[in-house]
């Protein structure tokens, strides 16, 4: 009808603001325990800390959920599943990462099977510090996330769309990592030398 393009934009902005206000009050999180931080989730979900008073509830299927919790270290094998779950979720979707393991590898910095920086593979909206964050920390993180959603700053999912190729490239690299050819040769030479001895 008589609407200008600018008006449409205005409307979109207003509506999304309203939608954000509503959605931040009913965050559903995927029921996926990926690491040792998952042990602090039951107390947070149940009677002592009760996060349902903030409108947060566990959800079994990713398609109905808004928040993905990465509760700690991720092995390469789990990362594959996490990415599948993340891509199944409908935007807007948010990622909260627990503990130092997701930030820089934590105490598994030299482990051959855990990824060190979660950020390289999926966008993270919020980190919780601590080696096993406390339940209060988790609840605080959710409140912080609500604030970010309200201000329109939790936009990891948009980042994922924008840099999709780069994320995919990184994921591909970690899944199909091969030791470089030269090094293989080097190793073989070493082995031959050993056998000669």
């Amino acid at each position, binding site marked *: 009808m008589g609407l200008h393009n600018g008006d449409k934009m205005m409307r979109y902005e207003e509506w999304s603001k309203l939608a954000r206000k509503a959605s931040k009050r009913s965050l559903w999180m*995927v*029921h*996926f*325990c*990926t*690491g*040792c931080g*998952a*042990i*602090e989730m*039951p*107390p947070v*979900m*149940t*009677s*002592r800390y009760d996060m349902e008073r903030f409108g947060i509830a*566990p959800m*079994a299927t*990713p398609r109905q959920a808004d928040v993905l919790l990465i509760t700690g*270290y991720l*092995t390469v*094998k*789990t990362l594959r*599943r996490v990415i599948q*779950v993340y891509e199944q979720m409908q935007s807007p979707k948010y990622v909260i990462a627990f503990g130092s393991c997701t930030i820089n590898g934590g*105490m*598994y910095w*030299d*482990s*051959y*099977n*855990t990824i060190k920086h979660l950020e390289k593979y999926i966008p993270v909206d919020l980190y919780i510090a601590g*080696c*096993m964050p*406390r339940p209060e920390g988790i609840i605080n993180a959710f409140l912080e996330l609500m604030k970010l959603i309200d201000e329109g700053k939790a936009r990891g999912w948009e980042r994922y769309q924008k840099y999709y190729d780069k994320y995919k490239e990184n994921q591909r690299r970690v899944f199909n990592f091969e030791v470089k050819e030269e090094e293989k040769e080097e190793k073989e030479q070493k082995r031959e030398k050993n056998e000669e001895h």
Partner: protein
Amino acid sequence: MKEYELFIGPQHPGITGNMMYHLWVDGDTVTKAECNVGYLHRGFEKLMESRLWMQNIPLVCRICVPEPDVNEAAYSMAVEQLMDWEIPDRAKYIRTIVLELARIAAYLMAIGSYAGSIGIYTLPQWSMGDRDYILDIFEQLTGARVYHIYIWPGGVRWDMPADLPRLIEKTLNYIEERLKLYDDVLFENRVFFDRAIGVGKIPCNKAIEWGVTGPNLRACGYGYDVRKLEPYAAYDEIDFDIVSYPDLGKFDAHEAGDVYTRMIIRRLEIEQSIAIIRQALKKMPESEHILKHPNWLRWKVPEGYAFARVESSKGEFGYFVVSDGGLKPVRVHVRGPSYTHGINVAEKLLQGANIADVSQILFSLDICPPDIER
């Protein structure tokens, strides 16, 4: 009838953690099950080989998340064997108390999640809340809720505060009261009887050969418990009973080795643990809490092979430690209790089970994936 394949986990509420079962079903009967683990594999054993003996303590507790203290105890005991150390009496008692508190916490968690798997959602709410009071004790004692890093080679890290026994006593009384409510909601509930009796039976004559340990073995009628077989900490000075199959106290005994018996055994062992803690608090002597220890940075452990075993809430935890007399261990191998009943036994029990029973069988075995994978 067509055969279908189902994948349960790793992202699924009916699974005991981050692991997966691959089921082949015919109608709603499972014809074949295959376990797929490795989602939590961090290569602990490799990491331990490149760290000092003392640096391994914060690592080992992460092997079993619901009950971390058994790992610290088992690792410390293995190192003490190699060093030929006899720990002070007070440390023994403190260890006993810590291990039993951890056991209660783990059982509460197991019972809660089991109840959730048969649709009784009240109990998880209660038992998780009650478990938290035990974590509060740990927080006062050690400064951390879940990973305590409290049991060290040579004793415990620091002494028990003078006012802690009162808090422990109060919490134990509270939990005892709550157990009555648990009985009403789960253990004397018609739903539990109908769902659990005769389901997921471990064949009793095979149980030992299959390597089943802990409450699952005791449910089959063998009263074996590492606390009695090879007493560690202060268990040899404390008087307690091993609960095993036909002797189920106030509960009726039905079939050996089924889901019902396994859960009842866990419920009864909480009472035993409470009794143990009370005795230990009463008998605790005054003495040092830790041996005079060497410089941790230059600490060499004599050459040899040591094996320490500890009874955890899931079964027998074993640590095999090999030293060549250096600053770092040559090899630490962990026998997780779930290694047997989470893979081979579960695969066999699931065969022929109903799909609806899969999750309750898994929860009643109390499988803890991190100790399978390490």
